[in-house]
């Protein structure tokens, strides 16, 4: 996405609910190429609320990925392996 000229952008979106849904589909990798191109080129670069929403959605996803993952305790992993190998041996 190019950097749009912020001063020329619309300040209101008449379709914000549908736009947000489309935005999420695009970020989820569920939109078609056509939907994606249309929305990103024809709408996002001209609409300030959607442009902001886009960056917000991206930021939330990044924050989730950095802050909400975890590692299984090694002891637990070893224990699971052990139990399964015992079953295999039996």
């Amino acid at each position, binding site marked *: 996405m190019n950097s749009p000229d912020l001063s020329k952008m619309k300040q209101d979106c008449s379709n914000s609910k549908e736009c947000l849904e489309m935005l999420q589909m695009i970020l989820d990798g569920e939109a078609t190429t056509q939907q994606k191109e249309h929305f990103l080129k024809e709408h996002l670069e001209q609409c300030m609320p959607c442009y902001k929403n886009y960056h917000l959605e991206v930021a939330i996803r990044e924050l989730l990925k950095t802050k909400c993952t975890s590692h299984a305790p090694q002891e637990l992993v070893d224990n*699971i392996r052990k139990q399964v190998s015992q079953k295999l041996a039996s």
Partner: protein
Amino acid sequence: MEEVIREQYSEQEKQSIFNKEFMPHINSMYNFAYRLTLDPDDAKDLLQDTYLKAYRFIDSFQQGTNAKAWLFRILKNSFINDYRKKSKEPSKVDYQEVESYYNSEDVDRQITPDLRVEALQDMIGDEISVALNSLDVDFRTVIILCDLEGFKYEEMAKILDIPIGTVRSRLHRARNLLKEKLSEYAKKMGYKNA
């Protein structure tokens, strides 16, 4: 298990599937178990039960299919059957009720759209983790599956046994609710329009 086709794996094949296809997902699976139960001990038990179940039913896993989705589905079902009743869920609300409430148009109007990226960048502590954990378990689940684990809508529909349309609407609601929580934090942190 819904799969009708059952394989007949040798012991060696079983071990190889278990180690190469199941074990690599153990951190994601642990995180899912923890986010569902919100209790480290329950998460350990749930994870262990799930992996032992996966091993027991290994013949109904078809090689070449998505092992991660298969495992997540077993974990989710185990959680519902064995843990949901005794877990420390704050809400004992019937899910149907919650969904119809959140499907009302009111919720969209209440959403504060002005949460700012700068406010999020200042959330360097566990704000987002607490916010995620505070969501009703069904909303929490779709965010984990989609945003953390990268499952496609179709895979999520299979894991959760719900139609794709429901996946989409639930995800949309879940994200709105998460943003609402994050705006509350942002306000507390002193962001005026957040």
